[in-house]
């Protein structure tokens, strides 16, 4: 074996490592220069302070979330958060069904309200209405009745039939024929309606009924309770909604505010059908309810059939209340209903102290590992320190790069992953060094021991890193919450570990093995053959450490071999040499 080969290989590996590091620095520099990047990784909310809200879809039992719906919901929520003037909010999906909204600082209640009310919007016909039990009867105006009108008339709602509380319609036993059929009201539903408390809506916000069944609910302010028919038009059918002043039939703008809705094609057809039916009905059943998040936000009367898909809602609107309803109609058109699953607020000071603690813990961890390495491996500990430093630099650059490019944010769990990976990375060096020592004990010279030890150690390091990486990848893909941040850093460092041990630690050993200090087995080098057992004893045989490996193998005198046939022995010798050449 030519002596220069390992040396050349070593230098080539180190050059590759340099190329990787320079490449990472250049990539980071490019994002700093051109993409508003930073030289430091962005911090997640638990280190920087801020509010994280996790929204979970409200599903009727057995339903699955459609990925497309979720993306759509994220887009709508993002629009809403941005509308609130919040900068740098991050909205992501998580675990295939949850939506995570991360907002720096403490958001004002209006922003939170806007995110939380990201509910499902439905149009249902009113079947029955009554005053909520806690309301006082002599306040009919509290119901805020609106009317819907296809032609731009300025007619405001005048009478409040709902407030008068129509009592039970006759209850036919026949199955209902259309969504407005009072036959939907079964005895059971009537009982539920009678005992229904509007305050129960506040508790979980989970008032979900299948679209093809009636719903018992209340006006958003808790003043009126309703039995509503099945869903006739869904919120997705709204193409646009806006508020503005209503123009009279002559085209003159009145000073009354209203809400204008544009349905899409499907919605137009559905809404025409509904209004054509409702307009012929009288009393409470002439109204339809706009249901947001299981609550009625408006229950206008139907004045005429809307055929063009562009109804307008008029009533006692102020400019503000009209805008709110228009926003609710437009942005409320989420494909799914959501409820707040968790809301976490971390103050900036707590974030800072968590970051500091993480850094302190990391430094202590590194110091302990270095101390142990120096005690166990003497000067070789220096190689461990250098490798850890290089690994640290590469990891830092990768995380910063991903932070700039992919919007990755380092969380406390991620920091924990980094600290724990110090141990995992150092483990690879130990596996390698112990292997070299084993080879030295077998009587090899250091340069031979480095090569032979590397071949075997690398296999071990590779399989154990693969196992570790599988663990990290599975956690990253499947787990939710801060498990992911942890798995992410653990996965990255596992790859970095492989790169460093192959492109730095091993080449360094190849080069150091040629120095007199290490190659000569100085007592402080950690590779002193004498200290490692001056005699070789393998397969029950003592040997001098000076013995040349090839001779050692050839003269193998295992008892079993003596008993072999010549052919068997030759085969065994060939195998022995083969092993030696590895």
């Amino acid at each position, binding site marked *: 074996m030519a002596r220069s080969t390992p040396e050349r290989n070593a230098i080539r590996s180190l050059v590759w490592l340099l190329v990787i590091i320079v490449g990472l620095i250049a990539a980071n520099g490019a994002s700093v220069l051109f993409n508003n990047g930073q030289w430091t990784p962005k911090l997640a909310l638990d280190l920087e302070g801020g509010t994280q809200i996790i929204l979970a879809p409200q599903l009727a039992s057995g339903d699955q979330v459609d990925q497309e719906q979720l993306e759509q919901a994220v887009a709508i929520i993002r629009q809403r958060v941005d509308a609130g003037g919040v900068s740098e909010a991050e909205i992501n999906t998580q675990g295939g069904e949850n939506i995570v909204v991360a907002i720096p600082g403490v958001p004002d209640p209006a922003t939170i309200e806007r995110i939380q009310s990201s509910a499902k919007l439905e149009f249902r016909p009113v079947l029955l209405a009554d005053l909520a039990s806690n309301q006082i009867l002599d306040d009919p105006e509290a119901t805020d009745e609106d009317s819907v009108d296809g032609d731009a008339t300025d007619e405001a709602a005048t009478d409040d039939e709902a407030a008068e509380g129509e009592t039970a319609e006759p209850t036919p036993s026949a199955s209902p024929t259309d969504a407005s059929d009072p036959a939907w009201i079964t005895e059971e539903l009537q009982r539920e309606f009678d005992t229904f408390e509007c305050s129960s809506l506040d508790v979980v916000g989970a008032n979900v009924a299948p679209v093809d069944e009636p719903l018992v609910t209340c006006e958003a302010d808790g003043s009126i309770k309703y039995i509503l028919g099945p869903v006739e038009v869904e919120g997705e059918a709204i193409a646009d909604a806006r508020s503005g002043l209503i123009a009279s039939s002559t085209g003159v703008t009145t000073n009354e505010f209203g809400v204008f809705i544009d349905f899409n094609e499907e919605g137009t057809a559905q809404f025409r059908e509904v209004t054509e039916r409702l307009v012929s009905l009288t009393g409470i059943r002439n109204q339809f309810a706009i249901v947001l998040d299981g609550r009625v936000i408006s229950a206008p009367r139907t004045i005429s059939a809307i055929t063009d898909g562009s109804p307008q809602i008029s009533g006692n609107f102020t400019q503000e209340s009209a805008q709110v309803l228009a926003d609710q109609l437009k942005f409320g058109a989420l494909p799914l209903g959501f409820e707040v699953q968790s809301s976490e607020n971390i103050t900036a000071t707590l974030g800072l102290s968590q970051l500091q603690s993480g850094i302190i813990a990391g430094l202590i961890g590194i110091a302990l590992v270095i101390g142990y390495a120096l005690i166990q491996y003497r000067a070789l500990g220096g190689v461990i320190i250098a490798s850890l430093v290089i690994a640290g630099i590469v990891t830092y650059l990768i995380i910063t790069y991903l932070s700039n490019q992919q919007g990755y944010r380092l969380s406390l769990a991620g920091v924990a992953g980094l600290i724990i990976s110090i141990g995992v990375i150092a483990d690879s060096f130990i596996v390698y060094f112990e292997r070299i020592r084993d080879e030295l004990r077998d009587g090899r010279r250091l340069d031979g021991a480095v090569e032979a030890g590397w071949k075997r150690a690398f296999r071990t390091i590779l399989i154990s890193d693969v196992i570790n990486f599988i*663990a990290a990848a*599975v956690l990253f893909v499947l787990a939710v919450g801060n498990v992911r941040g942890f798995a992410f850093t653990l996965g990255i460092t596992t790859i970095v570990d492989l790169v460093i041990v192959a492109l730095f630690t091993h080449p360094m050993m190849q080069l150091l093995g040629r120095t007199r200090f290490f190659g000569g087995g100085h007592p402080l080098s950690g590779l002193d053959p004498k200290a490692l057992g001056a005699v070789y004893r393998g397969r029950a045989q003592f040997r001098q450490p000076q013995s040349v490996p090839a001779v050692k193998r050839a003269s193998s005198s295992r008892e079993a071999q003596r008993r072999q046939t010549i052919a068997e022995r030759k085969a065994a010798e060939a195998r022995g040499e083969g092993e030696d050449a590895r």
Partner: protein
Amino acid sequence: MSMLTRVGNDLYTGARSFDFVGKRVVWYSIGAAVIILAIAFTALRGGFVFGIEFRGGSEFRVTGSSAAIEGTAAATSIAVDAVDEVVTGANPRVSIVGSDSVRVQTEQLTPGETDELRAALADAYGVTQADVASSFIGATWGADITRQALLALVVFLLFASVVMALYFRTWKMALAAIVALFHDLIITTGVYGVLGLEITPAAVIGFLTILGYSLYDTVVVFDKVRENTSEDGVESRRTFAQSVNLAVNQTLVRSINTSVVAVLPTAAILFIGSLLLGAGTLRDIALALFIGTLVGTYSSIFLAAPLYVHLRENEPEVKKQGSRQKAARPESGAVR
């Protein structure tokens, strides 16, 4: 050279040898006993104590309050008074976190109540509202984490088993490694159950990370086992069990070194986490990992390797290896 290196030399040559494989009944019994005790004590204590993420509720953290320094009792009475002012029957649980923070956990509050209580707590502890962090966790959040964690566990086990079976070219090593893994997981969660420590999502992260570490450690040992045993043919003087035992002894120093090095940073997080931050992400991850790493190292040596021998022992080829040796010994005396 350190003592460990000398021991390492002796272990490598076989001058000193611990009988890991031979006394396996003892190790099995210890493992089984610890597992039974862990389950029994956990059951006696009334099961695991789950964190607020699993129960659902509201949590407040007050930082920079002098009351925290005065002790739990003082901090608790302040918090209880503040909570009672805002809501009744919220059942507050108060703990000191780190050096100057108080954590107050209550039943789930409405957003309005949360704001009120934040103001009340800031007032009671004499800090600004910015120093009071509030969290609200729905009870389903923890259930979600648990479900995903269990899914991750199953998927990981499948993947890792296949990779190990392919790499070692025998499913028996994979099986032995996975049995050892379950041993580690049960004992680590058992420690939480027995001591009544709160199981938080961060602790669950710790448990999941044990998966990776426990196998990592076992794989390092098995790699040497494979190397030693694959060199043995039918003609080997050593029985299969002896070969495995030698391999375990030869990797013992490595196992100790890797475990110490893995445990040191974990211990640093545990120490700093408990000292500066108190109950929180860092401490919970580190505690689970600390226990798991130690148990994992033990199980790789004392359980996985003997178990592997147990699984392979009755294979015809492996049996032959042993019988040959018995037959060879008396003969060898005669030849010499």
